[in-house]
């Protein structure tokens, strides 16, 4: 696989390389269970328990990965946003379509922030600030992306010019 950009590794939510090895084969939605040594799992559980004790919000966080918000309007907003956020672990999948753990974490984060009253665009901006443009399937208009957004208009203009000139000549 193509190595993940370094900034993602720094972002903290991306698992350690050995862990990623297993889970990245799961692009397109399969989950690979690790068959390696299991001792790390115990450590993780203990760490998780400690963290959960320190911060009760964390337990809530995990549960929102596949739990809908009670307000249908907010859930619709969150859902629409998730469809446009890229899973950093698996290639070419939105977090709304991914079985990867990290995608679940991010779904949970998004639901939480929307629930707290943030607008989808605020959440997107926050995610982009944290992970970079890579995270959004809706590339923000900017220095590196203006040719991309201009392309449809340029193509359409060229098309119209060709069509008009060919009709005029033929008449």
């Amino acid at each position: 696989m193509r190595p993940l950009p370094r900034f993602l590794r720094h972002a903290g939510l991306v698992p350690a390389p050995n862990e990623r090895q297993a889970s990245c084969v799961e692009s397109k939605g399969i989950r690979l269970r690790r068959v390696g040594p299991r001792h790390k799992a115990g450590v993780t559980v203990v760490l998780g328990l400690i963290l959960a004790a320190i911060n009760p919000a964390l337990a809530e966080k995990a549960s929102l990965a596949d739990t809908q918000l009670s307000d249908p309007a907010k859930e619709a907003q969150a859902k629409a946003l998730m469809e446009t956020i890229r899973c950093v672990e698996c290639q070419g999948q939105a977090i709304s379509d991914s079985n990867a753990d990290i995608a679940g974490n991010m779904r949970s984060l998004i639901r939480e922030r929307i629930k707290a009253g943030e607008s989808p665009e605020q959440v997107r901006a926050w995610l982009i600030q944290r992970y970079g443009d890579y995270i959004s399937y809706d590339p923000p208009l900017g220095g590196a992306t203006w040719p991309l957004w201009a392309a449809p208009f340029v193509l359409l203009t060229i098309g119209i010019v060709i069509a008009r000139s060919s009709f005029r000549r033929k008449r």
Partner: protein
Amino acid sequence: MIAEGGLAALWLAAVMAVLQLVLASSAVIGGRAEMARAVRPAAIAQGVLTALAMLCLILVFVQSDMSVLLVAENSHSLKPMIYKIAGAWGNHEGSMLLWVTILGLAGAAVAIFERRLDQRTLNATIGAQALIAMGFYAFLLFASNPFARLFPSPPDGNGLNPLLQDPGLAFHPPTLYVGYVGISVAFSFAVGALVTRDVGPAFARAMRPWVLGAWIFLTIGITAGSYWAYYELGWGGWWFWDPVENASLMPWLAATALLHSVSVLATRDGLRAWTIMLAVVAFSMSMIGTFLVRSGILTSVHAFAVDPKRGAFLLALLAIYIGGALALFAARIGTVRQGNTFAPVSREGALVVNNLLLSVVLGIVLIGTLYPLAAAGWGVQLSVGKPFFDKTVGPVALALVVFMAIGPLLRWRRDETQALLKRMTWPVAASCAALIVLVPFAWGAGVLPLAALVLAAGLAVASVAPLWGRNLRRTPLFTWGMVVAHLGVAVSLAGMASDSAFTKETLAVLRQGETRAVGPYLVTMTGIRPVVGPNWSAIAADLSIRRGENGKPFILSPQSRFFASPPTTTSESAIATRLDGQLYTVLGQADGKGGWQVRLWWKPFVTLIWLGGALIGLGGALSFLGRIRRRNRAVYEEHEEAVA
């Protein structure tokens, strides 16, 4: 021994391709007519030899001969037989061999069946076909040998990616490859016509069945691939704007445009240069598609092997072929006149607009797909996905739908705007009716789905309009084909819009006996049980489902499957298909407290997406039969005249 036999057959086929090119070029360029006689046999021999090589590969997979590297890496002796056979192309080398085999067989088919094209143009076509094949033989033999041995051989193989262990694998890759290769044949015809400067209706009629055939297979391949992803991935999505999907969509768009411009060339002798250009573009798209999928530049379930050498090799092939094609086009197109002219308001005029809009969509998809790769080249990481394509392709595609409704209602050469407006009365009325009915339901769903539903209603009526007032039994088969295919687009569009506007989702943790609602259905968890398959074990949830409180209950059992080789868990969705949509259920993980995560979707009329795709393919097939039948009759009449 079988593996060595296969390798020998592959080498011989490569030699045949070289011979075919030498013979064809000395016949066409050197003017040595006696050479021309051996061109066809060489092409046929090449086809037979590639088929033999493919057969050998399938045989070593069936025998589970683990001393062959490819088998050891990708197969397992306990796999069901269908996946042993299909597994032969469920990997990089095997799929490239399948590509070449289909190319060889297509070349043989041209040599055997093409009788009407001018002999010189045909020889040039077969020569071009050999040139394309040679590049891929080199790629197979020097960078992707499928028959390499492994010593010492392991006791058993690594197995096949469980996501690919689905009947879809047996059909999806061969179908798409036939499509890609069919386009390369169309391109070879274009090259042949450019070489002999013989671009006209006869050439268009010879090329059309190949374009049509390729287009039918691409349509079916894309539709089937979409449904496969839909039920296999377990999240209810059917199109992801994944680069690999785009790689199959782009040749389809180009082939669709080519299909329409080639009929202008065949019927009215117009749009000559444009048709040739589209053939070059369509071929380039199928090359880019092959490159994107096979080079390992993208990581996905389609990219089996990641080897920079292969990527570079494919990129070089891509550059040579596309560059060569464009150079030939640039050198010769000056001598090709655009052909007969027409008024803007005419069937041709609508087809020109159709072609331009399709090309714009193609351009957007191409740029959107390659932009992240280019941006990575200058150090910027970004993603282009569904929101971008929805905003850009969506409106253009809807404009295309409008012209699609208008086109078949126009006469060739020249038509009156007043008469057209009169003919459009009923389609416009249908759209208005749809708007009035749908506004209360779909208002919150967004502009695009609503507009799509309204236009789909108009298009559906407009597509059957060419049959009004006609004697249906005497209507030519290819007119039926056009009607069915256009109707298929309307049906598919309605399905897409309905899925996007009306889908209901319920995510829940269910314990035994608990019930949740999704859309009109009530879903009750009645039990969890283990299931054992040939090479997997699974946990299945039994969901008892009723439509409303008093509905007759039925059971759906989504599974979470565990494959031992390679160790993988997949979710097998369980889907109930009804006339008005599908209920889609997926089993997730246990919560550790006796509950199980389930994902439930009610998707009204979602099946129309693939039903529409099937109708489009069927329309293509009807057209194909109609054209072949008419051509055979013409050949017969010519023969009769000659005898008289």
